[in-house]
């Protein structure tokens, strides 16, 4: 890269990037600060002499204690984890197989089927929950984790299928042909050659599916009703906003702790994830 004057680089690169990062991270910072800010500071008016919205000198763990003791937060975390993992696994399994078939096997209607699957992804959840609620009632799985484990794949499978289909198409088909000449069956070629190469794609799809399930709100709100069955996003909102009273401290503590698993999953797989998004397989 040709370096211009140093101030230019600061002005056109570091400054905008810094502002961008600041803008992105500020909500998290706000969440963290509010979590440890004592109540008397939280509700201090802006013209109070000690008003300091961005900092607290008396950090406290009261809100976290409150969250864990007064609500079923640990239960919600467990529910969310279970539901997100199960929905992700189901969707990945179906998505990988369907994506492979659509990308590789030549059969009638393959193109049409691919489009149809994508179209189902375009149906908004805010409409789909109405018929789904009916189905869930018919099968009597309302207010159980199954209500979500079985409905999340309705939007996760199309998503995973499309992502995997795109990824499989970047893998040269000669690899598979070579494996089959080498003595592998189609299944073995898929298992030993294609899936290991597609691992970055599978991880990306998995992370996305996990995050989407973890953050999902509407289905969780509609299909679950008893407090001990709820997921984090719904539990925090329904139990810590009572009428027009917002319990900001525990609310933020719940949001903060609730976002930790997703952050861990991301950071764990970030390298594979980036490789999956750029989607290149170099022989």
């Amino acid at each position, binding site marked *: 890269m040709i370096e211009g004057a140093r101030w230019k680089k600061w002005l056109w690169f570091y400054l905008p990037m810094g502002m961008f990062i600041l803008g992105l991270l500020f909500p998290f910072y706000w969440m963290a600060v509010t979590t440890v800010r004592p109540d008397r500071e939280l509700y201090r008016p802006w013209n109070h002499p000690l008003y300091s919205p961005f900092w607290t000198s008396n950090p406290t763990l009261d809100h976290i204690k409150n969250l864990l003791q007064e609500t079923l937060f640990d239960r919600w975390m467990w529910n969310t984890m279970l539901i997100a993992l199960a929905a992700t696994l189901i969707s990945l399994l179906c998505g990988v197989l369907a994506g492979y078939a659509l990308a590789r096997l030549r059969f009638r209607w393959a193109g049409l089927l691919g489009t149809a699957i994508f179209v189902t992804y375009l149906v908004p959840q805010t409409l789909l929950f109405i018929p789904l609620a009916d189905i869930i009632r018919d099968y009597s799985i309302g207010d159980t984790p199954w209500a979500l484990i079985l409905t999340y794949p309705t939007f996760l499978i199309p998503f995973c299928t499309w992502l995997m289909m795109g990824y499989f198409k970047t893998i*040269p088909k*000669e*690899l598979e*042909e*070579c*494996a*089959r*000449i*080498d*003595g*592998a*069956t189609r299944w*073995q070629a898929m298992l*030993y*050659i294609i899936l*290991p*190469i597609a691992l970055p794609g599978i991880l990306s799809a998995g992370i996305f599916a996990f995050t989407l399930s973890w953050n999902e709100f509407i289905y969780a709100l509609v299909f679950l009703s008893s407090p001990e069955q709820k997921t984090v996003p719904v539990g925090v909102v329904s139990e810590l906003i009572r009428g027009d009273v917002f319990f900001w401290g525990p609310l933020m503590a719940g949001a903060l702790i609730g976002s930790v698993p997703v952050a861990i999953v991301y950071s764990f797989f970030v390298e594979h994830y980036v490789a999956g998004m750029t989607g290149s*397989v*170099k*022989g």
Partner: protein
Amino acid sequence: MARVLLKNLNKKYDDVHAVKDVNLEIRDREFVVLVGPSGCGKTTTLRMVAGLEEISSGEIQIDEQRINELAPMDRDIAMVFQNYALYPHMSVYDNMAFGLRMRKFETEEIERRVNQAAEILGIQGLLARRPRQLSGGQRQRVALGRAIVRNPRVFLFDEPLSNLDAALRVQMRVELKRLHERLETTAIYVTHDQVEAMTLGDRVVVMKDGVVQQVGEPLELYGRPFNRFVAGFIGSPAMNFAEVAIAEANGVLWADARGLRVKVPPARIETLRRYAGSRVILGVRPEALRMASAADPAEYAFDSTAEVVEPLGSEILLNVRAGPHALVARVDPSTRLKVHETVRLAFDPERLHFFDTASGAAI
């Protein structure tokens, strides 16, 4: 030991007839090259032998056994692909061992075979590396190694050298030939490069539009092409063609075109007589044209204008124009020539080719 037989082989896609009635016998231990322009059906033919494409009609036999219905894995063949198709997530060793592992070989036997193949190809030092850490030539060798460890009945090569740079391609060509001499396995090799075809093949099959044009040893194709397509495809620079009228005068036949007038050599008079009064295509290879000397009979010489002079060191390619015809002559490097000069060239009467205007078949 393997003899491959293609009988009335056809491949039809929805609206394309890619391979038409190909009949070919590949003898045991023979190196046969399928060559032709892109889209001529050579790769499709090879893939049908490999079992990667369905056969629309016809039959493929290896050692008298019909293999149409066999899966690729059961045909006991190995294939080297244009893009090498190395498994990127495996080391070189595992790449070469994969086929043996799939066939449940003992670990010691796998090790012995991989090491032996690595030694033949000079890649012992690379066994622990991943494909992406290798250069193009090294990858090519690993792909070859993966084919030879299995000791298959037939090797199939699908343009294996076309991703290499020119110098490496020449080197690998020689190595491939040496390898074939050492292993003596029947091989079918597909390329669009006629130089590769000529240098590697025991026999060469020229294809065009799904049809086999000619099968023969390289020099046979070069010296006695069956038709205009083969004549033009084999050889570089390509054969010169000119449309001429055949006219009879005093018992002698003349091939006549604007700017060119050649006496038909006595040996060809009989076959060309029935074309008297009509037009044929005259073909002459660049090396069958030379600078005319006083000794050359006037009936085989003509005047032309030098347009481009290409000195290649060992020879000069002289692009001339005679009337409407652009011709290339391969002349001695000591020749001193300038562009726009008039050059008198002479045909070698023994090496003139004549082709039917309509069918392109050699006369």
